[in-house]
């Protein structure tokens, strides 16, 4: 398993790599994982859905990472923000209630 981080001006960097079945390496992976989450990053695991389509899964703990995952990708948290009134509706919902901010 590889832990990668997206970085401005560089592209991804390799944070840690190891065999999750080897206790010592798993421990190092867990430590690196926690370090990045503590730094405020999001962690995603590229996976495939049931119909075989590629997608990603956000994970908040190392226990959530599938044991057979090849990569965990860390990236900065999304910044955006929305007015309370705009929350909770799907994009297909009426735009009238979702006034531009």
């Amino acid at each position: 398993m590889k832990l990668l981080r997206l970085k401005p001006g560089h592209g991804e960097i390799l944070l840690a790599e190891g065999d999750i079945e080897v206790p010592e390496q798993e421990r190092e992976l867990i430590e690196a994982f926690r370090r990045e989450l503590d730094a405020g990053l999001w962690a995603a695991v590229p996976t495939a859905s049931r119909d075989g389509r590629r997608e990603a899964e956000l994970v908040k703990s190392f226990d959530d990472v599938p044991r057979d995952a090849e990569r965990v990708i860390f990236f900065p948290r999304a910044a955006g923000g929305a007015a309370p009134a705009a929350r909770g509706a799907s994009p297909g919902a009426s735009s009238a209630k979702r006034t531009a901010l």
Partner: protein
Amino acid sequence: MALALGTAAVVLVALLCELGRPRATELAKAALGSWRARRHASLRGPALVAYDPGRELRAEHRARELLRSCIEPEDWAMYRDLGFLRVWGRLGDRDGPGAAYAYLIYPHRPIVAFVPHTGALLNEYCVAFPDHSKPYGSSRLPDSDDVLAKWMALTADERGLINGANMHLPGRQIDPDLIRRDLQRLARWERERAGGRPVAAGRQAEGVPAA
């Protein structure tokens, strides 16, 4: 007696000053050097790194390879050829081709929601992934990393990403005509890839007239 004590005190003070002079000089020089360094750094501005004209290009090259390895080959071809990604919305009744709505993901621009069957534009969702550590003086990810971050967040937690984004009506940041042109390009691109065969329903922006 008083005169003798006074004289002795003056001599003692002079002796101590003479003995401590080298050390005091050293300390003064160190403090001055430190102050000069701090002043110089503050005049230079935040963390300057050596200029490397190829850095961003190499970063983007790495980012493209990573993106390619994560998304569907067809989606990669779409991004490579057209410069944006289409992601089907999942919060409606149907998922995948035939979904009620979809998104266009551009690098460092808002995510645009639209209706594939009519080409109607729904909203712009402003979302960014700033890295405040600014490792090379910028908080912006390479273009393809920005697209990958949006794709991962959207496919993993569409509702969370959309709810946290700044929502605007279409046209706030991206010219609607440009998006319509991109939808036309997408429809044409899909027809060409289908080799002239009719593209499956929902797999193209059907309401958008071919250019």
